[in-house]
């Protein structure tokens, strides 16, 4: 994984949007990893479509957090920090041509709990999502996995709100078009 990340400085800064809690004491590093590993891994996995790469990114996120735990001011700050760093590392990873190879890992993992709704539709949607450009994919992941508003996504990705809105709209339209090819109206 690339370590010469030009965004390192930015990632080390606190997020103004995340409120500070007076007297906030973060849990132990072990507790934080246990509590947030699924969130961080999921963002990375949906963005990268590769479990090994996603695990690498997720591990790197937590290792960076470990050295900056004392700068975390609240639970909200912690979650915002994790989202932002995960997204940035994913973008970084997606820019690397060597490891940005197509993968077939969008389907459900064997042994996973059955998906609610139509599992085939979900798998199709993940494949269509994987074909979107990285920034649009991340915007949709943050919107529909993390349930963030466009303003919050803009803060995480450090982009203007209109850009995010536009990416979300175009991304959804491409998904609709993709489903249409499969005979699904959305």
């Amino acid at each position, binding site marked *: 994984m690339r370590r010469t990340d030009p965004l390192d400085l930015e990632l080390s800064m606190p997020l103004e949007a995340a409120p500070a809690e007076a007297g906030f004491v973060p849990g132990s*590093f*072990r507790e934080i*990893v*246990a509590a947030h*590993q*699924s*969130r*961080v*891994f*999921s963002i990375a*996995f*949906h963005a990268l479509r590769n*479990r090994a790469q996603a*695990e690498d990114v*997720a*591990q790197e996120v*937590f*290792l960076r957090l*470990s050295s900056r735990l004392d700068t975390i001011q609240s639970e909200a700050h912690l979650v915002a920090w994790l989202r932002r760093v995960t997204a940035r590392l994913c973008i970084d990873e997606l820019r690397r041509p060597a490891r940005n190879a197509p993968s077939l890992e969008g389907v459900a*993992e064997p042994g*996973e709990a059955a*998906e*609610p*709704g*139509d599992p085939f*539709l*979900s*798998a199709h*949607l*993940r494949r269509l*999502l994987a074909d979107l450009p990285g920034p649009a994919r991340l915007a*949709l*992941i943050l919107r*529909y*996995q993390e*349930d963030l508003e466009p303003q919050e996504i803009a803060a995480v990705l450090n982009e203007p709100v209109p850009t995010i809105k536009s990416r979300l709209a175009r991304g*959804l339209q491409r*998904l*609709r078009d993709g*489903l249409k090819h499969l005979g*699904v*109206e*959305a």
Partner: protein
Amino acid sequence: MIDLERELARALRPQEAPAGFAERVLRADRSRRARRRTWLAAASFALVLLPAGWAYQRHQQQQRAEAQLRLALEVASERLNLALQRLNPPTE
């Protein structure tokens, strides 16, 4: 017709992290901290030792120069006096 946004939220439901992920992270963290400690210790050691080494070397140079100067003056003085005494041997 499906509700695309609802289906998308379903498709993007959180995934479980791979088994043993947390342990691997904690192990990597310990390893990275240990490496950092080693580097820090090495850097601190070098930072302390280099000036000390330089000062010691300088001190050695000074001592050597002083000793050499004392020796040179002693030899010069002694030899000069020896020459003068041979020129004018003391009367008995």
